[in-house]
């Protein structure tokens, strides 16, 4: 069930377009915000709000990498795997993360703290290799720098970064 506040926010988004369907990606993000991820029920609820089918909403939800159709950890690490980051040895950053967290891409740590996912491109080529954690961008990464960032994040609540 979507909360009244969520429904109102979706309704406000829908009002901005000639076709209600156009507000779908916003609706999905609104439904995901409080839950951290978008389950089948939340997806169907968001679709129903806009009068479209679950299949249609699923189509959009599975297209965008920022919509999580499986539960994610407290903090989501998006590691850029675009060509610029690759040239700047982004793979070693990724390998370090895999090792440190003990998860593969798409995995969540056993303590439920971190989820590691790839990002197509973060638009941070000038600061490659780059990552985004809880919506905050980090560039010029080295394994040491990354360790410091993760140590700092440990214990922080989800959404703290976004609110700052």
């Amino acid at each position, binding site marked *: 069930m979507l909360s009244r506040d969520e429904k109102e926010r979706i309704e406000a988004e829908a009002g901005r377009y*000639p*076709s209600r369907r156009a507000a779908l990606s916003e609706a999905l993000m609104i439904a995901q915000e409080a839950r951290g991820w978008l389950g089948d029920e939340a997806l169907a609820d968001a679709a129903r709000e806009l009068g479209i*089918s*679950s*299949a*249609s909403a*699923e*189509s959009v939800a*599975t*297209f965008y990498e920022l919509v999580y159709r499986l539960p994610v950890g407290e903090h989501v690490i998006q590691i850029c795997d675009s060509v610029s980051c690759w040239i700047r040895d982004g793979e070693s950053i990724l390998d370090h993360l895999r090792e440190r967290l003990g998860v593969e891409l798409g995995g969540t740590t056993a303590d439920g703290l971190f989820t590691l996912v790839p990002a197509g491109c973060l638009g941070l080529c000038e600061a490659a290799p780059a990552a985004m954690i809880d919506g905050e961008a980090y560039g010029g990464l080295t394994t040491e720098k990354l360790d410091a960032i993760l140590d700092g994040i440990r214990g922080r609540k989800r959404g703290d970064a976004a609110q700052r």
Partner: protein
Amino acid sequence: MSVANIIVDGKPYSIEGAESKNLLEACLSLGLDLPYFCWHPAMHSVGACRQCGVKLYKDEADARGRIAMACMTPVVNGLRASIEDPEARAFRAGIIEWLMVNHPHDCPICDEGGECHLQDMTVMTGHVRRRYRFEKRTHRSQDLGPFVAHEMNRCIQCYRCVRFYRDYAGGKDLDVQGWHDSVFFGRTEDGALESQFSGNLCEVCPTGVFTDKVQASRPTRKWDLRTSPSVCPHCAVGCSTLPGERYGELRRVRPRYNADVNGCFLCDRGRFGQAFADSGDRLRHCLVKEAGGQVPAPREAAIAAARAALSKPGAIGIGSPRASLETNFALRSLVGADRFFVAISDGELALHRLMRDVLRAAGRRVASPREAELSDAVLVLGEDVWNGAPILALRLRQASRNAPNETAMREKRIPAWDDAALREAVQDRPGPFFVASPGPGPLDECAEASYRAAPDDIARLGYAVAAFIDPTCPAPEGMGEEREALARRIASALMRAKRPLVVSGSGLASAALVGAAAAVLSALVAAGQDARICLVFPEANSLGAAMLAAGGLESAARLLAGAPEPAALVVAEADLSRAAVRGDGPSLMALAVATIVLDHSPSATSREADLVLPAATLLEGSGTFLSFEGRAQRFIALRPCEFPVQDGWRTLDELAAPGREPRSLDGILAAIASELPELAAIVDAAPPSTFRMLGKKIPRGARRESGRTSMHANLDPRDPDPRLDPDSGLAYSMEGAIAAPPSLLSRYWAPGWNSDQSLHKFQSEVGGALRPSAAGEGAEIGARIFGGETGRAALRELAFGGAGAGAPGIPAAFARRGDALLVLPRRFAFGSEELSAKSPALATRIPEPRLFICPPDAARLGLTEGASAEIRFEGADSVPQVLRVAISDLPEGVAELPWGLPALPGAPLASWAAVRPSKEAAR
């Protein structure tokens, strides 16, 4: 129509109608082989797969050229292109190599194998060696229900499935998921595909992602199927079908291309409904009733018994809207025209005759399904086309886009074939499409406005529309401001249109609705509009039966009851218990001294009969149906009859003239034409049995059919004699002519084109009619009996009730009758039609019978969703029915009851009933 002179690979060609064609269509129409995937003749271009890349050159001096997609290239004068250019060839080879990267190469176990567009295109492109040596992406496929099997790993991401299912047919539960190299086409979870057009995915998919699950239970390659041109028996649209058999069993039904009727598609009722013909309980022997019940009897004895029963004067014949014209006519000849009736109520027959009269007066303005699709403004008056005539509904869905598409084409200069651009430009904006019906339906989403009302109020809306268009028409009184505004809006939309269409039918058993449709047509004609009409009949040959019968079942009972001495009753291919006549079915049989039933499938009627003679289904017999537009179409036997089963008409003819050889199909057709001149065109529905192509018959089998001589080796090791077909120009053989006229075409195949996509090799031009044969037969399939000038005065008289004939005229506004509800028949795509309901795959999709009522009525009557309700029809002394309630969006005072479901046969059409809560559990 503009003509463009183009050059392809150095050769000049002249392309007619160039403005509506792209280069791919032009090349295919010219007979040039150019591989493609995402383009489809009915769904046009999106330019997604990149497989049809060709070289385009600026001018004569341009030697380099550039690669462009043929399907996205308009055909303009002076266009220079090359298919054979080495760079273009290399480009296409690269594309298919990429598309094939994840393909599992499981052709030997794939049901698409041997008729796979992907196989054909791979061979055509010359991709013979796989260089990719890494892991393939794999998907978990889904269970999509009883009709369609799913194997996602074969997918090449052409998107045709969602473009058909979602965009073209309006399905909501199949879509594309994911991105990049992990794209998935399916449902959000396992479950039966909801759309009644789902079976078309089998042909729309260029490979084996979506295949026919029913066929998969007994896999058969295309080349091992014997096929014959047939007509769907499951509704009045008369779609052309191509059933296929092996070892005498029906293996599948596919759409047969018919430009005027069903185009490339078929609904799931038509595709999966014909399994009734292979049902284990088929009537395959003569049965004679004895003290202990019916027992098998030798055919000679049964025929002798029938002759004895018919030797007394006054026998009565009951024909059927699901039997061929030939069977109905042979029965009529046997008993006499004035003693031949049809197995529907007098009321239904009167309505069907009114519809016949309107169509007759409308003449050339009777719309074929293709013409319906070309309409740019549509008014649907009451008829549930979606469930009653699915392919017409699919065509109307496309029609709803015509006006907005034309605007986008004009304003944004988008070509007609650029499907993605047109859909982007139009979005969900509906065209001038209006649906008036008691309850909601899937066509509502195509409509600019929907109107929910009782049949009489819908008819009044129609009459009001007519009066706005032609002020000399009487207008209904007291419409109220809102409804009047809607009527004015519809009228002006129909007047602005170039090709307006009005649709109604017998679905709600309302003569007023048919009258209103006639009124709208006559008004539009009077105003000089190029208008059309569609009137939907309930069954495959309802119109044909209505043209032959002297009356319905009540009239038959009256005649039988008043006869000086008891007479026999002959029932041909009908179950009297299904007719909307309360109690009269059994009483009719009780009145007869003996009842003889000819049928292929057992029914309540055949089980009570004194004598049962087994009849052929349309898979073993040949004959003609008259579709809702008056198109006579021939179905030709797929397999021979096994003794003592025989065409109904042949047995009846045998009974009519002892001692004489029964007539052939040609003989019966000639007799129909001479006795009923209006039906004379049925002779031309297909070539006669003497038809030959260069002296040869047309084979039902493919030239590489396997096992032909050993198929019956378990019975007799000798090579069997070929079975003869006395009724058509087709042979039970793999040998014979290599070409056929459109109405006898028994398969689509061309060298290099093994799939249904070979269709374009049989068309004059892509998307158009089939190419007429060298034998001089026409391009059209079937022959239309209506087509004269429109009788405006006659139409008007029928609409407003002239000299005792025609519709009752403008009805009074619907008024509730105390606590009673007007119970209307509601048809379901699956279950409401008698024969298809016997198909095992389809039976799983038949809904549970419910009584549909609106929330205010439910509250008033103390009923809630799922509660048991007792329904007692007015004037009926039979046991009240108890059904569960479903709350539905209906007008107050109106309820709906499923019509014709196997669990609920013989419900009256549009009757008042008292409804109250019941303590009894619902059925």
